[in-house]
């Protein structure tokens, strides 16, 4: 593996990790913008804009864009989170430069009114789809409840009202502020030629003008509020608990990630043995969600309505025991093995590698070879995790439940 980096005079950062034995290459444009960078009037604009980039440029229509990707057999897509919008494609090496050039071109979209109006329908369908997906919906609602007035509580999709009220002009203004070269990173991994990759990006993006871009970077304790919404369409109780976590820049992030596996991995965790193995809950998991300058843990539990008191009592007991007794060496070893084998499996694919490569630069401004992460995970000791448990106090959390409406 060979790492390369360069910065264009307008601030656009290019990074690459070359693996000549890979059968494919992956390229991604990482934009430091998401729902936390929005105001209430334009809530959902980052995600809507992600859709609009596929609608083309002044010289390229939407159907031509899709054809251009498909003609090269690219597996391509994009996603928007609270703080990032990422466009990516995985391709055979011979198409890498053409696909990189296509993405670069799309980063300066036409944002046409008629495309904007048509795509509103698709966005509203996406909102409706997630309304019918309680596993997603409950986590989204709980994050919003947890963050209260902090911008990380903003919904990524927005609401039907905010989407209906949004104008194409508002989107254009937001685009001009956020898609500045000094607010983006272009990353490439797998089998590719660094020099030709840089030349391709520079030719397309070298004349983009930098902007002053900022982001509110305060941390937040969390509201620790509790709410429930009953829906006639639901059969099970879906519960999300959000704890305050640590940020993507925090050195304790490796301990946090191991802690989430010890507490709530799909198999073999404390949740698993106390809840799922005994069929008290059908699903119980904990995930660590590091963000820019802040972070959360979110827990997801699914059970019958009648089973809720027992499930919550057991969960409270698990958090209490962790605070009192900490974790064991044996638990940590197992969690470490799981993380290490995930790292191996994920990083064997250029596409899997691309995401870590891009985010390490976005959050830390540094390149981290896989070996550094392996080393950092190996170095975490029991006491480090136990200190984190005491600092975070898992007994206090924000709770949101979605479940059957009262009869």
């Amino acid at each position, binding site marked *: 593996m060979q790492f390369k980096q360069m910065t264009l005079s307008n601030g656009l950062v290019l990074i690459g990790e070359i693996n000549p034995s890979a059968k*494919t290459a992956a390229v991604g444009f990482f934009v430091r913008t998401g729902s936390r960078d929005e105001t209430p009037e334009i809530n959902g604009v980052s995600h809507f804009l992600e859709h609009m980039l596929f609608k083309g440029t002044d010289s390229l229509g939407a159907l031509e864009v*899709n054809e251009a990707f498909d003609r090269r057999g690219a597996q*391509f897509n994009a996603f928007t989170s609270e703080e990032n919008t990422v466009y990516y494609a995985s391709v055979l090496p011979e198409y890498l430069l053409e696909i990189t050039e296509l993405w670069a071109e799309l980063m300066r979209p036409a944002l046409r009114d008629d495309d904007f109006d048509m795509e509103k329908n698709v966005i509203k369908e996406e909102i*409706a789809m997630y309304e*019918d997906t309680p596993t997603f919906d409950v986590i989204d609602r709980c994050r919003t409840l947890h963050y209260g007035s902090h911008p990380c509580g903003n919904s990524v999709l927005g609401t039907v009202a905010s989407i209906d009220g949004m104008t194409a002009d508002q989107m254009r203004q937001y685009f001009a502020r956020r898609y500045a070269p000094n607010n983006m990173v272009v990353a490439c991994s797998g089998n590719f030629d660094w020099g030709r990759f840089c030349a391709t990006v520079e030719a397309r993006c070298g004349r983009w003008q930098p902007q002053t871009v900022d982001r509110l970077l305060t941390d937040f304790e969390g509201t620790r509020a509790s709410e429930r919404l009953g829906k006639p369409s639901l059969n099970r109780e879906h519960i999300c608990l959000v704890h305050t976590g640590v940020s993507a820049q925090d050195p304790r992030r490796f301990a946090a990630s191991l802690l989430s596996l010890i507490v709530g991995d799909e*198999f073999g965790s404390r949740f698993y*043995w106390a809840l*799922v193995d005994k069929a008290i809950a059908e699903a119980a998991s904990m995930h660590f969600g590091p963000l820019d300058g802040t972070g959360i843990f979110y827990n997801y539990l699914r059970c*019958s309505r009648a089973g809720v008191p027992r499930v919550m009592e057991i969960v409270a007991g698990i958090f209490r025991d962790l605070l009192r007794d900490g974790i064991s060496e044996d638990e940590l070893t197992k969690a470490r093995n799981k993380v290490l084998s995930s790292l191996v499996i994920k990083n064997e694919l250029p596409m899997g590698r691309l995401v870590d490569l891009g985010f390490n630069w976005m959050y830390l401004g540094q390149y981290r070879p896989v070996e550094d992460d392996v080393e950092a995970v190996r170095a975490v000791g029991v006491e480090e995790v136990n200190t984190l448990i005491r600092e975070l106090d898992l007994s206090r959390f924000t709770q949101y439940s979605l479940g059957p409406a009262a009869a």
Partner: protein
Amino acid sequence: MEQKTDKYVLSNGMVLLGEPMGGVESVAFEFMLPAGAALMPDGACGAANVISDWVFRGAGGRDNRQLGDALDGLGVHRSDSVGSSHLCVGAALESSNLAEALTLHTDAILRAHLSDEEFAPARQLALEGVLALDDEPRQKVMLELRKRFYPAPLGRSTLGVIEDLERLDAGRVREIVRTRFDIGRTILSVAGKYDFDAVCGQVESLFGACESLDSGAVQVGTRTGGYTHIPSEGAQVHIGVMTDAVPFTGDDYYDIRVATSVLSGGMSARLFTEVREKRGLCYAIGARYHSLKDAAGIMCYAGTTPDKAQETLDVIIAEFRRLAEGIGDEELERAKVGLKSSLIMQSESSGSRAGAIGSDYYMLGRVRPLGEIAERINGATVDSIVAALKRKPFESFTVVTIGPREVRVE
């Protein structure tokens, strides 16, 4: 595309397949046991789902907790699933732990404790999974669609049905394990970094003494088909549509795969363009080819708000029918490139290769080299596809909807 397949057949009939992959440290394996949902006795729909959990609740010299801890200690990523024909148990892991992981899985397959005490939670979890399906209409509509499309019992729900699960007892399910875990008809596939001689030696010592059973085949009944609406007060109408296609083993297989890619391969394919890009009817829309050994279809999903449901279904059906009228040269080329490119991308993952070679062997009795697949895809032409679609036209559609409004189906 360089590729090699290792193969070893035990005297009892069990088949071991391997595909070595360069430049990887991981390995993945999968046991395909002939104990899928369609092979469960009548009145025991869901038993395979219970079994896939129960066999890991203590096996060999380890109790439930010890077996779980041992698997966790190896850092394995477990992947257990129930399909129509097979119950699959497998894992992906760092290659140095392969031998130990195979030993633990063999315990679960041959020496599971299957205790009464552990049966109750295994069955309860299966029941809870079926109840939770009501909250996931996108997943439920496709299970309901397969149930009605395939002749019974091939399309049976792999999760099970409440009435059957409630009636199951430990004794009955133990008997199913005894008669259906037929090692002589089991396929084990391995892909990634491994030493084939070592794996053969180990598998011979683990399974060599097992005798083949006469576990019998499925008696196929009739198809329900038609249109079914399941009322629900959700935000969208979830639409599932399925129509006949030649199976994996059929002569026209590659023509139909390319045709499906024209319909729904990438974002420039017809369904995405007509339903989403031009009309804004849906966010999620897509179709894929789905094949069992002797029956196959193209299955399509769309989710849309109630006012748009009828138009969405009408556009989908019209697009299926329009395929036989002809295909443009460029869209044919895009469909082929897309299929070939995803083939290469999947070949980079040990997990997806282990699954693919096992499934090839079950369907065809051999593993197709990637080069052969690419060549057959290249061989499809507009004429050959249209001829294949005329030999087996999309005549009838099985349709299921879940949501607040019904649609009309001609």
